[in-house]
């Protein structure tokens, strides 16, 4: 059934995929917290490891979306895709740790590059 779901993109399957493979695996941690009540120390070793894995995973997703992009992002050369991330981090620090400024700086670089290459 799972293989069948993977190849389905019409009908109600995307909604089922989101509920079964997105919502439930994510929500379980929130519900578990309600029933565990109190207990785990936020600085316990197991949670340090869990957070490190979660951060590395998220950073990996960022890298993958930039290195092997799909759709419109693929029309921007790799140099400028990576450059926009660098500009985002630089903008964040230059604007005294403003996340909004970092995002705007990265977008300006990428959109600028996009306009330059398409025009």
């Amino acid at each position, binding site marked *: 059934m799972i293989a069948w779901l993977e190849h389905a993109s019409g009908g109600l399957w995307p*909604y089922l995929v989101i509920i079964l493979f997105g919502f439930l695996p994510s929500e379980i941690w929130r519900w578990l917290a309600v029933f565990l009540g109190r207990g785990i120390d936020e600085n316990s070793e197991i949670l340090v490891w869990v957070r490190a894995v*979660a951060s590395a995973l998220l*950073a990996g997703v960022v890298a993958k979306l930039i*290195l092997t992009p799909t759709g419109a992002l693929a029309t921007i050369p790799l140099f400028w895709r990576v450059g926009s991330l660098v500009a985002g981090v630089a903008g964040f620090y230059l604007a005294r740790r403003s*996340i909004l400024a970092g995002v705007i700086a990265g977008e300006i670089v*990428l959109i600028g590059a996009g306009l330059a290459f398409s025009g």
Partner: protein
Amino acid sequence: MPAEPASDSPSVTWSALREGIRDAAGLPALMLMASLVGVGGLARDIGYPLGAGVLSTVLIWAAPGQMVLFGTIASGAALPAVAVAVSLSSVRFLPMTMALLPLMRRPGTPTWVLLLISHYVAITAWVHSMRVMPDMAPERRIPYFFGFANTVLVAAALATGAGYYLIGQLPAALAAGLLLTSPLFFLVNMVAAAKQPVDWLALGFGIGLAPLAIAIVPAGLDLLVEGLVGGTLAYLIHRCLKARREKADAP
């Protein structure tokens, strides 16, 4: 001392709810919209319908998890691997929820209310609530939280839908910019949130190992393997550094 009579009068509840809505309708809502607008684009990118993109925001309510979901599906991952990857990216909700609930739980708060509260736990509402709630009257906290959290949720759901729609209408350069929003926003956020060496190590390994993982790990498992390897490496180095520091501190 006699117990305070329950003061959950409708007027208290409504004013706390309104206060929550007001506090959310500004930078918190804007930042969430910026992070979810790209998720709508990702959903469209893999051929999912508009409703599925918006549903992912309302149900999963974790832009990183949604990015992992759509990103791993796009990379051809098997669905069980997708679920594991999404789950790993959401483990952080366990300690976050456990830290937040004691601020809102009062004697007699029904479990279903706590479960409902827990659904709204995500970084923006969490950081904000942990900051403002200790100074707030206990009976105002739950309605305040629902006002705040629902406002950012609705804003984010609208942004997801808008992103989904816009990605097909915009010129290529702007559509690319829209697809960049999520990865860029999370990278900057991770940089902003990184405090200890272990955070930087995890971030560095996560990005640094990506080209290698994409090249040698079968598509679909690459992100999961990379997260486990990179995160474990970061953790082990953190342990070594800590042990060395403790040794150096010892007399």
